[in-house]
Structures are given as structure tokens and as C-alpha cells.
């Protein structure tokens, strides 16, 4: 029989205001197993904890029930108190009489009655508690960063800086991500390449960092501290270790009509290419869909001109297995497709472009060498209309757009408008906005500068439709402040398209068993207090894969994710949660139901020898739980048809005892 102590907390007036704490302590004294019961104003205070410790010693307590706030708040506190008093910390149960009782009830009799019932349930459970000891697992001291944009780059650099090895897996032939495509960056207008490419070089030169470019993660197994990851290195038909990046092949390749995705298909590249001059690694890649040699076996020009002998038409996809202690997701974002927005004539006119296309049009390394020219006729546009919130802030039922604010568009549109007016003062620039949202250091000042110093026309209202008319675009829009419908004959229309998570994020989340929201953004463990951790242990989030973010925020979050990774990798061993599933092998019939429902892949089956009463042996297939992977969710305990699975600390027996205590 347990010797249980009950400690009822007032929480000032939080609990005592609606619960008669003295009556609760008195009532619980009569419960089976209870040998001591007391109340105190703040049980979590040092004095309150000392009261518990003293009672444990004085009354030889074997179990503790604290009637207080949510276990989320102070369960850890009271477990530590118990441990300090020499008790197993898992002999502590919390009856939540604040959030689930005093805060929701208004009158004292009801509150008191419910508090007593909740206390009884906790006492009933403690009577069946057994001491639990958490297991330990080792930590592989290497991190994996998935995605090589600014988020992944910064995270990798920060982890490497702390002395740990990091691998970056990037699906494109080069790291750099979206930031490499940008021209200038708000609000300081420094050139994106000037601040990004030195970081890319740092990555390449860092001994602790390996880059798997043109590669994808195809399988993730294991658990925090011990992930087994399979990486597919896609065949680029160029030997990375030999290629010097001289570019001779990209100049001589006769296949010139390959859409250049780095310039958003606004110009063409060769079938063998290096995405941009500062690419890291600076290695050529052959686009197998266009290469005549790979398709028809005719050509071989690149192989002939390559002095390094790096071309290898027989290269195959390669699969690499690596072990990691932590995984950082940095898969980033893309602008949404404009195909469904017929009203803006994106597919009808080449002169209706997205903001990212505008970035390339103003970038010195872009298709127009930085001259702002219309894609249709190469003329300088005299009148430009920017449309904000295209596909952002839509109704949940809207099939075209997204419900959220994409956050970065107000600032980059102000930037585009300002830079256009700066470079081409004769250009008339109009921005249609619904709201201008510029919270951020020096952000609103930046927007005001666009209006006040650079003379950008900001009009409150939305564009209803864009009608191509000869070489003009008739923009029909609302001016809500003037109460007018406007028709502007523009030369170029720029759509601030909403952003969405990269398409690779969803399958990756499945591999990682990391949760996502309805928009496919990764969910953080706590929206305020754990913003860079995924709820899945050992998986961390960096950059726009978690939600729309600008560069300053992304870099800050990347550093935060790195610090969490460093904290994990610095440990030699990880202490697990002992409240994990356990299979009773004598009852397990080997049906695999638990294995199928386990969201963490914690259950495997093994053939095990059993000694029969007649001393013969029998080999049976039974479930085995890896306690380091199990998160204690309890799915398997419900699914098991033979009742062989049970959750330590939350055994069926204990739950039923609680229900009985409440119902009797």
C-alpha cells in the first residue's frame, strides 16, 4: 500500500477564490492510501516545496498528489521536489484544479466539489504508480540541414562555428536559394549577392560543412540523436571532384534553347550549365531533358572541350546513408502560381510579371543585364503598376489564394517602386494596396521614403482586371479614397504573388513525422516559446518553411535553430521520457497492428524464443518498442486487439482507476 501525501495549493486567490482548499485537503485525507494532507498559499514557492520535502521525510511518503495548476506549468517543479526528497519523480501526480476547475467555475460549492473529484482521481492513480527510470541514448554529433538557402546556410555556419559537423542537402545544383535571385534587399538596399555570396563561400570553405548539392533526402529513420538518413545524389553527369567550373562546356554546348529556371524562364541557358557566376559548388550540371548526348547519344561536345575530363554521361543517381543527431528543415518558399488569376492576364501578356520576375529584370546578372525592359518588346516601360496582395489574405474557401498575409510583399514592392523611380525618374509608378503592412525596424520609414522622396503613387484599392490592349495594359482598379474607378494604361504590371512553402516540404514532413499546418508550413513546438523546434524531438525549423519571413527574420531564426541544435549535439547522452509504451510479450500475438498505427516508427517486430512449460522452445513474433523513439502517445495501446500494449505511467489500469474514482 502506498503512503500518499496530498498538497492543495491556493495559488493566491486563483484557486482559493473559487475552491475551498481547506475542505479539499480534509476530504482527500479520507481517500485510501492518503496519510497526510495539507494546504498552502503557493505550493510552487520554495516554502511550499520545503513543506512537501518535510512531509515526505516525516510521514515516509511513497507518493505525492499536488492539487494545483496544470501539469504543463509545474509538474517538472514538483517532480524535482520529490527527487530532492528521495522519491522517484514519477510517483508525483498533479490534479489540475486551476485551469480545469477554479478558472472555469464561478461559485465555491461547485468548484470545491469538482476539485475534490479531481483530487480523488489523482490519488487513485498514485496508488497504482510504480517508480520509472528514463532510458538513455547516445547522440551522433553531426547535424543535417535540409535546404541551402539563406536559412540553411546561416544555420549550417552557426552549427559549424560551434565545432560540429554539418551537411547541407540542396536539391538545386547550387546553394543560395531565393536570396541569390534577388537584386537589392530592404530596408538598407544592399545588393543581395554582395551579402550572400561571401556566406556561400564561407560554407564551401568550412571544413566542418559538406554540401550535397543537386541532392534530396529520400528516407529518414531513427530518432532524436540517432537519425539514419538516405540522401539521393541526382546524376549531374559531371564529376564534381574534377570539374573546375571554368565554364568552357556551358559556352560550347550547342543546345541553347533550355529554359533558364534561375531567371524564371525569361531567358534560356545551355543543356550543360552553371546556374550563376557565384554558384557554390561551382560545378556544371547537365539537364538530361535537353542534352542531345543523353537523349540520342549524339553530340559529346562538352566532353571534348572539358580539359579536366569531368564529363561522365554514364553517371547514375547515387544513394548515400548518413547518421545525424539533429535535423534542421530549411526548405523555404516559392511564389504561388498565377495561372488561376485570369483577371490579371498573367498568361495572356508577357508584360504582366510577378515580383520575383521583376527582381531578375532589375538584376545585373538577369536576362536584361539589369536594364528594366519589357519582356514583350524590350522597350523601357514608362508606366508601371504594382498590385499587392495577389493571392494573399483570401477567404478560406478561395481556391486561388492563401488565407495568410505573405508578409514580405509590402516591403519588396516599396523597394521595387523606389528603385524604379531612382533609376528611371521619368517612369510613373503606381502601387495598389489594401493595407500597407510594414512593421519591422526601419520598415515604415522605408515605405514612407518611397512615397515622400521618390514620388511613388500609393492608391488604396485593388486592381479588378488587366486588359491587354495593343502594346498597353489597361488596368481597371478602385481608388477607394477618391471613390473612383480608375483605368490606367500601363506598360508593365507587377503582381506581388503570395508565397507558399516549397512543394518538397510535405513529403519531407511525412518522412520526419513532423507536423504541418493546413498551408503546409511546418508547425513549431510552441508558437511563442519554442518557435524553432518542431514537436518531433530532434527536428528544428529554420526560415520560411515555418511561415512567411523576410531575410532579417530568417537569419535570426536560423541562428536560433542552430543554437538549439548545438544544445542537443553538446550532450553525450539524451535522457528519454520513461512514459513509453511497453508490450507484454506473453500476450502479444504478433499482428502488427501497433506497428501500423505508430506515428513515430517506434515499434518493430522480432522473432523471439520462448521457453514452454514442457521445456521445449517456441519462436514467436512479438512487438518490441524502441523507448528512445516512442513519444508515449498511446495510439498502440488503443489499437492492440489483445491488450498487450500498455503505456508506462499511464497504464490502462491507472486510467480506469481514475475514471472509477470520478464516477463513484
Amino acid at each position, binding site marked *: 500500500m502506498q503512503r500518499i501525501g496530498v498538497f492543495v495549493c491556493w495559488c493566491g486567490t486563483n484557486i482559493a477564490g473559487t475552491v475551498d482548499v481547506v475542505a479539499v485537503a480534509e476530504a482527500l485525507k479520507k481517500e485510501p492510501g492518503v496519510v497526510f494532507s495539507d494546504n498552502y498559499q503557493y505550493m510552487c514557492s520554495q516554502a511550499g516545496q520545503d513543506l512537501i520535502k518535510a512531509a515526505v521525510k516525516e510521514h515516509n511518503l511513497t507518493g505525492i498528489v499536488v492539487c494545483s495548476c496544470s501539469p504543463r506549468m509545474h509538474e517538472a517543479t514538483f517532480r524535482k521536489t520529490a527527487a530532492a526528497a528521495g522519491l522517484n519523480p514519477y510517483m508525483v501526480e498533479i490534479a489540475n484544479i486551476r485551469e480545469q476547475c477554479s478558472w472555469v467555475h464561478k461559485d465555491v460549492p461547485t468548484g470545491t466539489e469538482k476539485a475534490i473529484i479531481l483530487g480523488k482521481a489523482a490519488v487513485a492513480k498514485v496508488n497504482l504508480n510504480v517508480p520509472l527510470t528514463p532510458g538513455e541514448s547516445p547522440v551522433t554529433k553531426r547535424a543535417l540541414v535540409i535546404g541551402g538557402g539563406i536559412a540553411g546556410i546561416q544555420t549550417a555556419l552557426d552549427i559549424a562555428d560551434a565545432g560540429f559537423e554539418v551537411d547541407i542537402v540542396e536539391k538545386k545544383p547550387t546553394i543560395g536559394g531565393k536570396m541569390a535571385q534577388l537584386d537589392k534587399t530592404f530596408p538598407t538596399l544592399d545588393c543581395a549577392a554582395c551579402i550572400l555570396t561571401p556566406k556561400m563561400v564561407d560554407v564551401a570553405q568550412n571544413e566542418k560543412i559538406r554540401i550535397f548539392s543537386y541532392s534530396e533526402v529520400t528516407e529518414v529513420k531513427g530518432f532524436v540523436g540517432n537519425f539514419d538518413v538516405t540522401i539521393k545524389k541526382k546524376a549531374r553527369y559531371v564529376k564534381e571532384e574534377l570539374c573546375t567550373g571554368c565554364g568552357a562546356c556551358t559556352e560550347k554546348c550547342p543546345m541553347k534553347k533550355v529554359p533558364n529556371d534561375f531567371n524564371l524562364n525569361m531567358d534560356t541557358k545551355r543543356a550543360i550549365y552553371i546556374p550563376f557566376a557565384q554558384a557554390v559548388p561551382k560545378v556544371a550540371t547537365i539537364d538530361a531533358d535537353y542534352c542531345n548526348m543523353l537523349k540520342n547519344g549524339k553530340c559529346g561536345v562538352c566532353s571534348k572541350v572539358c580539359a579536366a575530363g569531368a564529363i561522365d554521361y554514364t553517371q547514375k543517381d547515387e544513394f548515400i546513408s548518413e547518421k545525424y543527431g539533429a535535423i534542421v528543415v530549411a526548405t523555404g518558399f516559392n511564389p504561388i502560381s498565377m495561372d488561376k488569376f485570369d483577371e490579371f492576364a498573367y498568361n495572356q501578356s508577357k508584360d504582366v510579371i510577378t515580383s520575383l520576375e521583376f527582381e531578375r529584370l532589375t538584376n545585373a546578372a538577369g536576362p536584361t543585364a539589369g536594364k528594366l525592359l519589357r519582356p514583350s518588346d524590350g522597350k523601357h516601360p514608362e508606366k508601371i503598376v504594382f498590385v499587392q496582395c495577389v493571392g494573399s489574405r*483570401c477567404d478560406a474557401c478561395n481556391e486561388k489564394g492563401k488565407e495568410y498575409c505573405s508578409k514580405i510583399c509590402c516591403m519588396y514592392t516599396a523597394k521595387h517602386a523606389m528603385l524604379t523611380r531612382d533609376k528611371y525618374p521619368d517612369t510613373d509608378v503606381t502601387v495598389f494596396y*489594401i493595407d500597407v503592412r510594414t512593421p519591422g525596424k526601419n520598415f515604415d520609414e522605408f515605405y514612407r521614403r518611397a512615397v515622400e522622396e521618390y514620388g511613388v503613387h500609393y492608391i488604396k*484599392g485593388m486592381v479588378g*482586371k488587366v486588359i491587354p490592349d495593343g502594346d498597353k495594359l489597361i488596368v481597371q482598379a478602385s481608388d*477607394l479614397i477618391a471613390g473612383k474607378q480608375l483605368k490606367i494604361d500601363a506598360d508593365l504590371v507587377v503582381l506581388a504573388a503570395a508565397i507558399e512553402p516549397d512543394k518538397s516540404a510535405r513529403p519531407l514532413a511525412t518522412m520526419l513525422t513532423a507536423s504541418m499546418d493546413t498551408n503546409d508550413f511546418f508547425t513549431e513546438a510552441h508558437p511563442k516559446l519554442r518557435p524553432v523546434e518542431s514537436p518531433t524531438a530532434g527536428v528544428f525549423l529554420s526560415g520560411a518553411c515555418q511561415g512567411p519571413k523576410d531575410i532579417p527574420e530568417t537569419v535570426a531564426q536560423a541562428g536560433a535553430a542552430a543554437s538549439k541544435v548545438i544544445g542537443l549535439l553538446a550532450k553525450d547522452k539524451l535522457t528519454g521520457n520513461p512514459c513509453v509504451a511497453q508490450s507484454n510479450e506473453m500476450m502479444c500475438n504478433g499482428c502488427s497492428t501497433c506497428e501500423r498505427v505508430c506515428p513515430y516508427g517506434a515499434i518493430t517486430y522480432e522473432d523471439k524464443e520462448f521457453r514452454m512449460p514442457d521445456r521445449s522452445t517456441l519462436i514467436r513474433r512479438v512487438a518490441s518498442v524502441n523507448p528512445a523513439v516512442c513519444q508515449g502517445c498511446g495510439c498502440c495501446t488503443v489499437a492492440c486487439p489483445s491488450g498487450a500494449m500498455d503505456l508506462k505511467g499511464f497504464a490502462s489500469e491507472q486510467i480506469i482507476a481514475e475514471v472509477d474514482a470520478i464516477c463513484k
Partner: protein
Amino acid sequence: MSNSKKYLQEELIRISGVNPKKCMRCGKCTATCPAYDEMEYHPHQFVYMIESGDIEPLLESESLYKCLTCFACVERCPRGVEPAKLVEAVRLAAIRKQGNNRLTANDIPELIDEDMPQQAIVSAFRKYTK
């Protein structure tokens, strides 16, 4: 808001099935409206005025009968507000209040020309019959 205004507002919301509170005031409905020049009150004003209970001016406005019911505003609204349905609800309320038709059914054929889309004809019946 007075009780009679509130009653009228609730009535319009009920018969239209539209929730004007979903509006984020972007004005895309009005930006897209082909009958803009003919109308005194524009689609976004219908939404805003119904939401704020200022409905009397709408009931008396010719705008009710200038709306083509082309549903461009419904199609384009990013928030799914459906302003045309609100215009129609006000039209119904006006016709019910008047107690008689704006035109008789016999007047309609003369007003219809061959290029008129079917939707507009259906809309014409909504405008001119009980």
C-alpha cells in the same frame, strides 16, 4: 443602430446568405464592376453600408437597377463576400417595400436586345417582377 435598421440589416443578410463582415475593404469588387459609371453606389459600398446599417440610401438608389448581375464581383472577391447577392437582396427588399413592380412583365421584351446574355435576362426578371 435603431431597431428598424437592425431588422432590415438582418433581413438582408438572411435573404442574401452573405456575411458582410468578411469584407477586408480591398475594393476589388468595385474595381472589376462593368456598370461602375452607371451606379451611384458601388459594390463595395453596398457591402460596407449594409454592414454599418446605413441601408435607406441604397433602397432609394437607382444603382439597384443598374447592377448587371454579372457576378464579376462575386467571382473576383478574394474574401468570398459575394457583393452581387447583397445588391440583389436590397433590390428584393425595395420591390417588396414598394408593393408593386418597377415595370410590368410586358415592358421587358422591348428592353431586351439580342446581345444580352441570358444571365442578364434572368436578372431582369428579378428586377422587374415580384
